């Protein structure tokens, strides 16, 4: 037990130190994790033996990441990208495999091994690339989307590769690799090992259908049931259960767990619970991915690197340049223009984590001699290691060139509006939302009551279940892109806390808050809300105005009297607010506050009724005629 804790401590410690430093230096978290791994592994030798085991565990981070990616992708979007998925992704994998296999053949390697090498080097690192895209906000660019299509195709392509590689087995390798086979990635637990091809296909189709059907029809009831309990940790447990369950199911029938969870994510992308699920899985994904990168760093075998330095470095650079060149050409063919083409070429030019999986698998299946495997593992690790450098190259050298051009060209286009996040869509927030949506202003609506979300769904208003006071959830609904946040949640204390948090963590946001009463509105003001609307103030005012006109006052005058009332109140606002603040600080029993409130009432009485000396009344400035006989003095 203590041993595990010690290792966990060493890993976490390295991450906690290295990642913030890397971020501050502008290198991105991935490089930070990789360096942390190198330091605790090959350099200091704290860890090393167990990296392979931990790596299997950490690969689950990739699985979770694909689940999250799936959540972001609705089936419609997936269908829309089919051309790039098949064309760009398919060509990239095919061409890269051909070129790398060709090179291997040229160096006199057996054709079976050459094909395996080609296949495993054609894959890129989903983990590094998507993580970096997220951090740099590149996911929504054309280059980001194209890269994603290619990565997705690669992840799908792993399945047929796993099917083909055993057919390439070389008999001579059989004995030498017996012991490595024990350690291979292939799971020993399988439900389908004994099935014939036809039955197997049936099982696969059945499993996928089960995921889609349960995602569509069962998940809602399950999540509703859990949401009704109000226990946040149970929701977290449910989210994890879902991901682990799907991954296990896929593993059992011999498919890629990452692909399975991706599918589950896509199925759930339309769910009201989407953002809540995201917020729950996100931290686990982050930690496990981090762990994965550390193990890559820790797994670098310095002895092999030193012995075969020239070969390893040479192959690594060759792999990166060849893949980048192929991708760049494909970008031109598929009209991924300007900086996006460069982004595609540079971001995907490394080998990926599935490369490790395939290396183990090929060795286990007697396709790859172990000594090649060591070198290839290094090549894969090093190419991943160099990827953050390529992103820096892109940021510093390539992007600035294109940015200047596009700035000049797009000067006339007005800035697009950021979206509005509305927390709480009860009787108040709902109206705000309807007005915004009716005017094509994008909103994201959150409510902590699943029933409320259902009600809105019935009238075709898209909203999500979720507790808006959770920072992780706010991240997943895109708070960084939002320009306005409407706080309309019912819990008064939580509303104030939310405003305080938002002002602190996202100072750029404008905050419009709904106040329950006067005291609450002062609390919200103190917390930093930009605009505060007291929920009953204006409706009461409208009722008062109607009451005036029903009492015989002309409607136009009644309206002006009501507006004067508001103005006089506003002119006393600062004074009242300050005395309220003093009361807060001194713990006074609002004696002074009450005094000032009385003064306000007096000012109102005077302002509404009293005429000015010159015959003008405060409440109806204007439309008052000049004094009688004024014409003689002109």
């Amino acid at each position, binding site marked *: 037990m203590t041993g595990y804790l010690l290792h966990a401590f060493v890993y976490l410690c390295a991450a906690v130190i290295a990642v913030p430093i890397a971020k501050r230096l502008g290198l991105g978290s991935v490089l930070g994790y990789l360096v942390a791994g190198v330091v605790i592994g090959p350099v200091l030798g704290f860890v090393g033996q167990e990296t392979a085991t931990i790596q299997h565990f950490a690969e689950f981070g990739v699985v979770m990441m694909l689940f999250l990616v799936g959540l972001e992708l609705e089936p419609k979007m997936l269908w829309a990208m089919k051309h790039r998925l098949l064309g760009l992704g398919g060509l990239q994998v095919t061409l890269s495999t051909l070129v790398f296999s060709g090179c291997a053949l040229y160096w006199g390697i057996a054709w079976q091994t050459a094909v395996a090498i080609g296949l495993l080097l054609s894959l890129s690192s989903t983990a590094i690339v998507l993580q970096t895209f997220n951090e740099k906000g590149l996911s929504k660019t054309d280059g980001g989307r194209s890269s994603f299509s290619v990565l997705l195709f690669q992840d799908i392509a792993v399945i047929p590769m796993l099917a083909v590689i055993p057919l390439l087995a070389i008999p001579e390798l059989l004995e030498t690799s017996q012991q490595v086979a024990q350690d291979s990635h292939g799971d020993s637990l399988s439900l389908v090992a004994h099935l014939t091809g036809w039955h197997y296909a049936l099982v696969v189709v059945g499993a996928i259908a089960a995921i889609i059907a349960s995602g569509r029809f069962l998940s809602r009831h399950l999540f509703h049931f859990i949401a009704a309990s109000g226990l946040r940790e149970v929701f977290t447990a449910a989210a994890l259960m879902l991901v682990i369950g799907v991954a296990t199911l896929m593993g059992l029938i011999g498919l890629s767990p990452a692909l399975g969870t991706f599918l589950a994510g896509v199925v759930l992308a339309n769910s009201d619970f989407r953002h809540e699920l995201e917020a729950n899985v996100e931290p686990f994904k982050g930690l496990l991915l981090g762990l994965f990168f550390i193990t890559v760093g820790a797994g670098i075998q310095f002895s092999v690197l030193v012995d075969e330095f020239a070969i390893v470095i040479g192959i690594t650079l060759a792999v990166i340049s060849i893949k980048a060149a192929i991708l760049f050409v494909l970008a031109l063919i598929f009209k991924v223009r300007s900086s996006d083409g460069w982004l595609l070429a540079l971001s995907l030019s490394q080998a990926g984590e599935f490369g490790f999986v395939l290396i183990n698998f090929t060795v286990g299946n007697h396709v790859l001699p172990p000594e090649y495997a060591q070198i290839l593992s290094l090549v894969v690790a090093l190419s991943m290691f160099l990827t953050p450098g390529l992103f820096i190259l892109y940021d510093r050298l390539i992007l600035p060139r294109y940015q200047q051009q596009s700035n000049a060209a797009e000067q006339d286009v007005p800035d697009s509006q950021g979206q509005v996040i509305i927390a709480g869509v009860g009787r108040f927030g709902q109206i705000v939302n309807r007005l915004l949506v009716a005017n094509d202003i994008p909103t994201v609506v959150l409510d902590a009551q699943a029933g409320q979300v259902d009600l809105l769904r019935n009238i075709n208003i898209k909203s999500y279940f979720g507790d808006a006071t959770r920072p992780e959830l706010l991240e997943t609904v895109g708070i960084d892109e939002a320009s306005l946040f409407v706080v309309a949640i019912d819990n008064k204390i939580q509303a104030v806390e939310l405003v305080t948090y938002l002002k602190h963590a996202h100072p750029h946001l404008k905050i419009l808050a709904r106040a329950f009463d006067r005291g609450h509105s002062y609390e919200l003001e103190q917390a930093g809300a930009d605009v505060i609307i007291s929920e009953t103030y204006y409706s009461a005012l409208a009722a008062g105005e109607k009451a005036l006109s029903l009492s015989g006052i002309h409607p136009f005058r009644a309206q002006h009297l009501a507006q004067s009332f508001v103005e006089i109140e506003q002119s006393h606002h600062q004074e009242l607010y300050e005395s309220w603040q003093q009361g807060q600080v001194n713990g006074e029993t609002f004696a002074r506050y009450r005094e000032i409130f009385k003064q306000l009432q007096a000012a109102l009485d005077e302002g509404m009724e009293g005429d000015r000396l010159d015959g003008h009344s405060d409440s109806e400035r204007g439309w008052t005629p000049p004094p009688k006989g004024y014409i003689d*003095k002109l």
Partner: protein
Amino acid sequence: MSNRVLILYAHPSTHRSEINRPLFEASCQVNHVTAVDLYAEYPSFRIDIDLEQQRLRDHDVICFMFPLYWYSTPAILKEWQDLVLEYGFAYGADGRELTGKKFICVLSAGGAESAYQASGLNRFTLPELLQPLEQTANLTGMTYLPPYALFGARTAKEDGKLSDHVLEWLLWLGEFSKPDFNFDALRQYDLLKLARDHVMEVTP
């Protein structure tokens, strides 16, 4: 000391404006100019009389910028006049706050210049139609300047007249802020025509 220019801009659907909004936005960038979008500031027509009167005190050149609506200003500018130009402030026994200030209308008109003739569709010239404003300026002791107008405003953008119009107006704004600018001399001229000569001088 430079002359300070106050622009009171009124367009009830400014998001559709092709002429006045560019003119207003360009004016916002000029030194010594305070540009007020009245419909933005008073969406419910509740004009703050004290604030508006103080603005008038603080400026030397008062400018109404608007599209011509039914031979007059949009409603809020009329409301503004009714409320802000109070007895005792703008006129009357002690009402001398505006005396000596300059007043100009910057407007766009849908019809062609030929329509604003005794023989044309509108039967009166633009200066004739603006006589209520001219007399308001007279009564309040302000110097009334000839209007700076753009005719055929509905198609001015397509006709390529907009950028010249904005540029010429900016040149006038620059002139107005000069402390020794002779406003009285300007009263005799057609401002539009003068602007063209002026631009010819300035731009090579």
